[in-house]
């Protein structure tokens, strides 16, 4: 290996089944986010294969990768990243529109699912961080994704709110049969997962099922 080359992921072999709730743990620089980026088709592995539901995932064409994300992936960010100029309800309908058609009734259902049916006309700046994250979860479910990804999605929340958000997320995923993968430093979130994978220096150090 030439000096200066960094192996962000090194020989990672994973198979994730439908309905699993996977938590990726590890210190900074362990490759968690890189792995998540590859799974979400934001990035492409230098070598190896990635199949989703038996089909290879696009890895070179940006628009094909975007299309894959739109059709299959829901994403929740640490800092929510709601669009400030849209109301809570409109943030969800935007994703529906990008995927082909808006459905206000369904958007309201999703907000009810995350416990925010009373906040539909509020702007993000008018609600709390925890509420914003719940809206972000509802948004990520708007197009009925097969896979939901979260990167440090409780990193900006206090422990009580974190717990509330995780419960909402898990309930939503169980209801819809959605597979979840979330990246975190927070060991306390292991209880919400069905499987924990630890990474270090780009390698899988452990992969255990959680009862």
């Amino acid at each position, binding site marked *: 290996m030439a000096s200066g080359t960094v192996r962000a992921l090194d020989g990672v072999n994973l198979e994730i089944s439908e309905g699993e709730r996977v938590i990726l743990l590890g210190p900074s620089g362990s490759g968690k986010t890189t792995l998540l*980026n590859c799974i979400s088709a934001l990035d492409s592995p230098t070598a190896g294969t990635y199949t989703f539901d038996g089909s290879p995932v696009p890895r070179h064409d940006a628009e094909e990768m975007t299309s894959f*994300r739109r059709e299959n992936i829901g994403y929740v960010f640490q*800092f929510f*990243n709601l669009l400030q100029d849209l109301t809570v309800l409109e943030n969800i309908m935007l*994703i529906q529109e990008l995927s082909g058609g808006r459905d206000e009734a369904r958007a309201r259902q999703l907000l009810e699912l995350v416990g925010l049916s009373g906040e539909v006309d509020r702007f993000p700046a008018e609600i709390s961080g925890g509420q914003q994250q719940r809206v972000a979860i509802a948004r990520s479910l708007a197009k009925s994704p097969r896979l939901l990804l979260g990167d440090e999605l409780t990193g900006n929340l206090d422990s009580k709110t974190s717990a509330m958000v995780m419960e909402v997320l898990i309930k939503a995923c169980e209801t819809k049969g959605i597979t979840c993968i979330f990246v975190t430093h927070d060991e306390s979130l292991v209880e919400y997962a069905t499987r924990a994978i630890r990474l270090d220096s780009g390698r899988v150090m452990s992969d255990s099922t959680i009862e």
Partner: protein
Amino acid sequence: MSTLLTKRLARSLWRTKLRLYSVILMIAVGVFAGISFGTYANSTQTLYDNIYTDDEDGVNLPDIWVENSAATWNGATADSLCQTISEQWPDASMPLETCEPRMVIDGLMFHIDEGEEKFIPAVWHGIDEGRVDRVWMPEDDCCSGRLASADDEIVLDEHAASGMEIGLGDTVSIGAGHGSMDFTVVGIGYHSQHLFFSQMSSILPAEPGTFATGYLSDTGIERLANLSAGSANQLLLDVAGSPEYDLQSTDEVEGERLSEIISSVRDTMMAADDASFITYDRSGVESVEFLRADAEGASKSYPIITGMIAMVAGITIFLSLQRLIQSQAREIAILRTLGIPKSAIMPGFILAPIAIGLIGSSIGIVLGVVFGGPAMVAMYEDLLGIPAIGFHTDASLIVQNFVIAMGIVLIAGIKPALDASRMQPLEILRGQHEVRLSSRGIQRLTSRLPTTVGLTIRSSMRKPMRLIFTFFAVGLSMLIFGTMSLMMDSMGSLVGGIEDQNWDAQVNVPFGGEGAVIGWAEEKGADHETMLVFPGNAEGDTRQFLAYGLDVISTGDDAMSPLNLLEGSLPVAGATPTQVLVDEGTMMFLEWEIGHTQTVMFGPFSLDVEITGVTRGEISRTVYFHRSDLSDAIGLEATTVLLSLPEGVELDEQIGEMSIGITQKQDMLDSFDSLLEKQQQIFNAVLGLGVIIAIAVLFNTLLMNLSERDSELATLRVLGAPISRIRSMMLGEHLAIGLIGGVLAAVFTIVMTQYLISSIVQWAFFFTLQPDIMAALELILVVVVISVMCTPYGTWRVSRMDLVKKVKDLSQ
């Protein structure tokens, strides 16, 4: 002051190179425009002052003219009149230095051009002593030779000489109603009455080879026009110094003392002589007045134009620097959190705008002094054909523009930095200073629209003040181009009236000479109409108009000389009082109204006239009479015969020799086309300037909007929004901004053009705004195109976003 902190700021600002360049560009453009226009305005003013001055290099322009409008004084009479005027001079504190008789006549030049003989209308001056109103022969490539002394010598005007490729030593054939005679060219120069080289009452500079003027000796002109020794039709009076005279462009009476002297001279002349004469000051000399008006117009429009450019540049600089510095807010907050005092942070934020201002101003100054100023003056020389001797860019002009630019930049740069340094660091670090609650009103208005459309509209209106300023700046930047476009259209419709005329040639005849020309016309089967043209003025007013006596006053397309009647009705011949039509410029300046009776003067003779209607399209101030009415008033039958030539009939030597000047319609149209071509170059340069500024303004704002939405756009991309969708959103936003900006630009332009025209029109040069819907649409289209051009860049920017990095940023 910490060098490290300043270095940090410099590197940070360097990361946003594009925005930095746009600010520097706007400063450079503003300073460049100010220096270029200022050089033009200053140069035109000082040029005339230098030419007219009484010294070896100047021409010693007279202060008062007495002109015999119907006949000629013989030598003894002319000298006697000068003597009487001198003896009865009313003001010893403004003594008369010189009274010089002068002969100026209309004529023809017979010129062979590519084997074809041409009859070129001309004006010949006979100069005796030449103590006043001398021929101007500056030390320049333009001019050479000496004054004419023998009776077969001529100094040809440089415009004519260069247009017809005539040089020293050449022989020219000229006439003045008594056949043609040969003269040798001994000099090439200019004359104050023809610096603006055009035929009488025309604002069109004569196309090369279509007009000539020459300066003969007194014996030369007597030989040419078969006059007795000492004959004159003008008395040139030179008062000591250069007293102020009444300007036509103001309501005040600037030259009260000179006006009193002129009045006294008029009384003296009336008592001493029966001839029909007019007296006037410099404002009555077309060329002098036109060039003065042009210089005054340049002086008036320079601050307006540079003011507009400064405002546009100022707004753009302000918005850009504000954004640049606001993007430093986080860094300022971090530094404050680390304990670094304001006094250590602020110097860098003062130095940054100073540096930006210095760089931009330096570029603007160099470009303005080396290219802009000389280019403007060269354009002026090319248009008017006068060498701009001794022009230079004043140091005070450079300093003035520099100070204004630096002032704008400092205010624009320091204020946001001061604001950022006063904010609470924690607020900035949390990003709370950038959180803005969206407008509920706009949300309700757009809630029924597709969400992407609603998002686009709301994002655009997130910073309404920036949007308003942008619209204002775009409106102003297109104003420069739009104003020129509208003014050219308006002027175009003015001279476009020439095409509507149904005559082919206007043949000027000596008094009583129309019969011969009519005989020629009838022999050739050409249609003809006689016309009488005579200068006059309103009673109590020194400004001259031209009275046109027409055989047929008509608005019909088939009339020889159709008029454009704006309001009122056509006059009836033989009415009492005499009925007339007046052009709208005259009506406005003299505050006349339809239906009223006014008194007009033709020399010492007065006539009451009733105004029945107003016309439009006259280049100079005009009053239309029935020829019979005007003839009764002034005792002359005709000065001109209009000819409409049948197919195959051309003007020949016979008619050339019986006339004292022929103006061909085609020559006038060619002059107009030539002027239009030259104006087109200026127009294109101004359009280019306006478009560059509009591009800088729009791009600047739209790019700022884009960069502020980076996280929003990245979120959309991560969530799966296709690039085509984002492109559509951007296109919609840019199209809307372009349309609104374009409409505002069109409105601004019409209002401002109206104001500009009203501030530059004068007695000698009048026209009205003729707003054209196509010009307005063109303006809107230009703005829309510029705005929409931002979309490809925005799309490219989003498509090449490193989403991996963005997700990392979003997650941090």
